[in-house]
């Protein structure tokens, strides 16, 4: 059960007020007419699914109804930071494989 800090309401609320909306920071294609089927497929269906640090979009559906981002560990479920849409995360995964 998550206790989530909404950066718009500036307070902690229970998970049930929120809804997870999947991966954050998915840019729309800059030139849609030039996209191949593969690029469209990846934009539509392929999502980061890491076991570890994940940036995700949440909506405070039963509260202010605004979107914001969470950086969360998908293995331990620990919420590492909460930040507004348009901001950059300060906690990022170490991409070295």
């Amino acid at each position, binding site marked *: 059960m998550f206790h989530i800090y909404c950066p718009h309401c500036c307070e902690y609320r229970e*998970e049930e007020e929120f*809804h997870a909306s999947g991966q954050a920071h998915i840019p729309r294609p800059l030139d849609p007419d030039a996209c191949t089927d593969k690029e469209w*497929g*990846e934009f*539509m269906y*392929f*999502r980061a*699914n890491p*076991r570890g640090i994940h940036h995700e979009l949440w909506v405070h559906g039963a509260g202010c109804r605004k979107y914001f981002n969470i950086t969360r560990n998908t293995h331990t479920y620990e919420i590492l930071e909460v930040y507004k849409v348009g901001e950059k995360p300060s906690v990022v995964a170490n991409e070295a494989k």
Partner: protein
Amino acid sequence: MQHYSGFGLLKHSFSHHENWQRVWRNPTPKKKYDVIIVGGGGHGLATAYYLAKEFGVTNVAVIEKGFLGGGNTARNTTIVRSNYLWDEAAHLYEHAMKLWEGLSQDLNYNVMFSQRGCLNLGHTLQDMRDIQRRVNANRLNGIDGEVLDAQQVKEIVPVLDCSDRARYPVMGASWQPRAGVARHDAVAWGFARGADTRGVDLIQQTEVEDLIIEDGTVVGVRTARYGDIRADRVGCVVAGNSSVLAKMGGFELPLESHPLQALVSEPIKPILDTVVMSNQVHGYASQSDKGDLVIGAGIDGYNGYGQRGSYSTIEHTIQAIVEMFPVFSRVRMNRQWGGIVDTCPDACPIISETPVKNLYFNCGWGTGGFKATPGSGHVFAASLAKGEMHPLAKPFSMFRFHNGALVDEHGAAGVAH
């Protein structure tokens, strides 16, 4: 292999059941195999079994990081049905259903497959239209199915609240008489025993840390415990961890891993002799032979690898069950757990070649993989043996997300999520 029979049981009773053979070996892996299967769950073990039995490929290893059948095979609600809407999915699940029907005899292992029927309830006019469409599609595909009205549902499950006082009154249901439940652990153990007997090495407690890829071709796997193990072909059947393995292969899969929870009650006397599912109030239940109610929930909305979910999801599930079965309102729940399900955008699996040569993936079964265990294993084994995808697996290529040929079973197939 020691043959199991009633006579054998009697014979061993004279020696206090102390002389049964070990069911499978615990071998040290060889340096090289024809096929390595990563993941020793139901689907992986079934793949190994059919590879050895049907396709004569016995130089096979199954590599499992924990113990056999300890992931989602041990965590599901054991429901088996094949009433899917679209031809591609219906054929695949019906292929599995036909294998289920002879599985205990085939394996000489009682998987306790009980064809007690499955009801998918309809609570709205749209539900009923969808049910009619799906049952008609099923029948055209040779899959049994009937559309029932509320009165007929009541006759099958007297304890179900079919009154018009319910918050979401039951208007009817689809009914698949051949559907049912099976003993989940026995399925894994039966396949493991059958595979081991035919020479497959089952390597437990061994985590695959990397895939060895040379010139775009997979040539083996790297493990911490036994070093490199080489193979001509590698099949990954690792459910929730598929994305992690795909990343080792240098590509991505259109999967998201979510926690899916289930729970069982204390054992009670026989009261529910079929499977009841409802998409609308979002819960499903059956009763095991031991007497406990086996109850399933929806997935938790966030990505998670933790094999646990949120309490609110359990609460919503219990609300749904009590809504359907007011008589269960005072039954106490015994245990609750979560598995990691790898969900696909179209709620259908991926049984596919990959951008890496000789590397195959069988994943994306999401919330409903158990029912497909024998069928999934069979078509994946055929594909691994021949190096070419089985006709039933072809529509489930991972490249369908590039060309748009999705098999959209979301909400269409009585998929309860």
